[in-house]
């Protein structure tokens, strides 16, 4: 009987929290507008592909092979603009001014040597200030010259065939959207849970909450449910948009993704409530969320692969729930993950949830005693 009463109380608390969250049109807008903006801009902005770059060419040779090579370089998909240079000074300046990402110099004896079958070297000047883009663009150039070289040189004894699994054209959007499901679910859930207790404290309703028969665990439950719902709704919206608007394949199971989102949201609630419990104002709670979120996104494998990090940060990345959720989300979207493949990451998420929830409960429980 007592259990039933308690249950009714929790349901009432959850309904109150949800009403408060959705009370004003502004709150709903605050949760939805960023979602739509990010969905419209993120996939296009966050690409490491190189497109529309400028190539500068200093050609000192008038032979046919040189002209053909230059034509092929100009048609490479990474470059939308090609500048012709006249001397070395100019070559230096275009890189200095960042007018071109890289510049190629074709020496005067290029055609003669190519036709005579002698080895010849081209020079590439590359802007190291943008080293990642420059390296990628340079690899496109290398591809073109290698193909060209093969036609003029002797037949090699073997060839190399590259096939990309799960994403045949290495479409960056296929990578970004599954990650975005995870990242956007993070912001909403954390803000809702972290600011909730802090707001009650700032507005003085925290004490009122404490004098109710609800125990800290139940209050935490009531505060978690809206966060989890926000996370799952936002995640679902992005997942739908990924498939129907951006055409990302979805080869895994929807239920597994829902389960993983739930596990991830649970771990976020633990983090959010912990931040909430140790902050005395909304400002502090927000800054706390921020201090958690930025490193979490940076160390999640979304911006740069985890294996490039030093050992210490790789450890931090292991403890980061976002890392695990991104692995699951990408796996379900692109690789057809089942429970077996997603298992380790899912367990890690649940483990992190348990730890953060216990921590939050301990801190919160101690506060109610004083």
């Amino acid at each position, binding site marked *: 009987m007592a259990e039933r009463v308690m249950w009714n109380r929790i349901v009432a608390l959850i309904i109150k929290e949800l009403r408060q969250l959705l009370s004003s049109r502004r709150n709903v807008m605050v949760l939805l507008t960023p979602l739509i903006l990010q969905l419209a801009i993120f996939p296009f902005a966050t690409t490491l592909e190189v497109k529309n770059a400028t190539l500068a060419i200093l050609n000192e040779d008038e032979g046919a092979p040189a002209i053909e090579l230059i034509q092929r370089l100009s048609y490479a998909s990474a470059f939308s603009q090609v500048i012709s240079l006249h001397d070395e000074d100019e070559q230096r300046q275009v890189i*200095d001014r960042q007018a071109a990402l890289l510049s190629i110099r074709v020496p005067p004896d290029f055609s003669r040597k190519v036709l005579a079958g002698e080895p010849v070297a081209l020079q590439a000047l590359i802007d190291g200030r943008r080293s990642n883009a420059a390296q990628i663009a340079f690899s496109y150039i290398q591809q073109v010259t290698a193909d060209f070289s093969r036609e003029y040189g002797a037949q090699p004894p073997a060839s190399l065939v590259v096939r990309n699994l799960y994403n045949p054209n290495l479409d960056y959007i296929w990578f970004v959207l599954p990650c975005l499901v995870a990242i956007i679910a993070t912001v909403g859930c954390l803000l809702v849970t972290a600011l909730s207790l802090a707001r009650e404290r700032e507005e003085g309703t925290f004490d009122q909450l404490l004098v109710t028969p609800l125990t800290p665990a139940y209050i935490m439950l009531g505060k978690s449910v809206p966060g989890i719902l926000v996370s799952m709704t936002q995640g679902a919206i992005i997942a739908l948009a990924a498939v129907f608007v951006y055409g990302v394949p979805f080869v895994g199971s929807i239920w597994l993704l829902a389960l993983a989102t739930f596990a991830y949201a649970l771990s976020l609630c633990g983090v959010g409530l912990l931040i909430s419990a140790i902050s005395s104002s909304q400002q502090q709670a927000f800054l706390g969320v921020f201090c958690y979120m*930025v490193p979490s996104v940076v160390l999640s494998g979304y911006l740069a692969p985890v*294996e490039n990090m030093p050992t210490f940060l790789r450890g931090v990345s292991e403890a980061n729930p976002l890392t695990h959720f991104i692995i699951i989300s990408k796996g379900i979207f692109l690789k057809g993950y089942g429970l077996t493949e997603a298992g380790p990451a899912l367990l890690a998420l649940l483990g992190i949830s348990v730890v953060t929830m216990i921590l939050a409960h301990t801190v919160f429980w101690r506060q109610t005693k004083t």
Partner: protein
Amino acid sequence: MTSAPVERSGFSWRRMSALCLKETRQIVRDPSSLLIAIVLPVVLLLIFGFGISLDTNRLKIAVVLEDDGAEAVRLASMAAGSPYIDPVFAVTRDEIAPLLKQGKVRGAIIIPQDFTTQVLEGRGAAQLQVLTDGSEPNTANFVASYAQGLFKGWLAARADANGVSAAEPISIEPRYWFNPTTVSRNYLIPGSISVVMTIIGALLTSLVIAREWERGTMEALLATPVSRTELLLSKSLPYYLLALVAMLICVLIAVFLMKVPFRGSIWLLLLSTSLFLGSALGMGLLLSTVTRNQFTAAQSALNAAFLPASLLSGLIFEISSMPAIVQAITWLVPARYFVKILQTLFQAGDVASVLLPNLLFLLLSALFWLGLTAWKTRRRLDG
């Protein structure tokens, strides 16, 4: 003293410095603002410096030896000695399929059964197959290019063994300027300073002032003879100074801890930082004045200032690779100009042709945001 109503428009240094002092005390008293101004920049810079490395070093790549002929062995031993490849050897393709699926290896180089035979036949039919994990496109590109490098090395070694010249008919020699070893840290660190400045300038101020509105202390302040200029200056000067302290910390970490070269002038750095903070502080003040609510102010500062500063500024992602509409939006992001200036000052030095236009845009943007704030604040005061 006359009993005339207090003049509102008069500017008083005394009033302003009193307000500044009050604001500074408030900053120093709240541990969270100090956390943001000093601890966060350090943590952020360290994380950006060590966490985001786009210079892929050793990649775990499976090497499948379906062939055990001499050429296959030569390839395998070269893979084992490669500084770029951390090989996982296997005998069948079935062994590596689950490894690829679970992301345990980033790609696979498959040496098919009849590889050596076909190479010796010399009809060019031999094929070395490379599989990459396309779910991480950037890494997949690196796998392909490492495999290409291994393949070239093998061609050269084979030619060498046969006593033929190994030189490729046409080669290309890269020279990287400004950053000869292509360490991505050298351009990520200067750029990420703009993120730190955005956090202090826009995020922190928007929260602080929204709180004043929420608690009603702003109304109390407005009832005093404080003028609009005094109010805005007193709200921004302390944060400006706080941001400069953070900037100093950032530069020290970048130069002495991260060994990023600084080749430009300190004065230009100070000038560009001040101009950028003009925009950031303006944006923060504006958002809090318009929303008057901490939750909304925080969310909008996050989306209007922080995310653009990190994603649309060219810090990590190349602006020129974005579609035209997104590129057009980046012109409105002050961080775009600041990142360019920072990268140039650190790595290249005082290159006037890059710095001048970007400084001009920063100035315009600062005038725009501060002007808009002043205008909006007046309306708020009157209304």
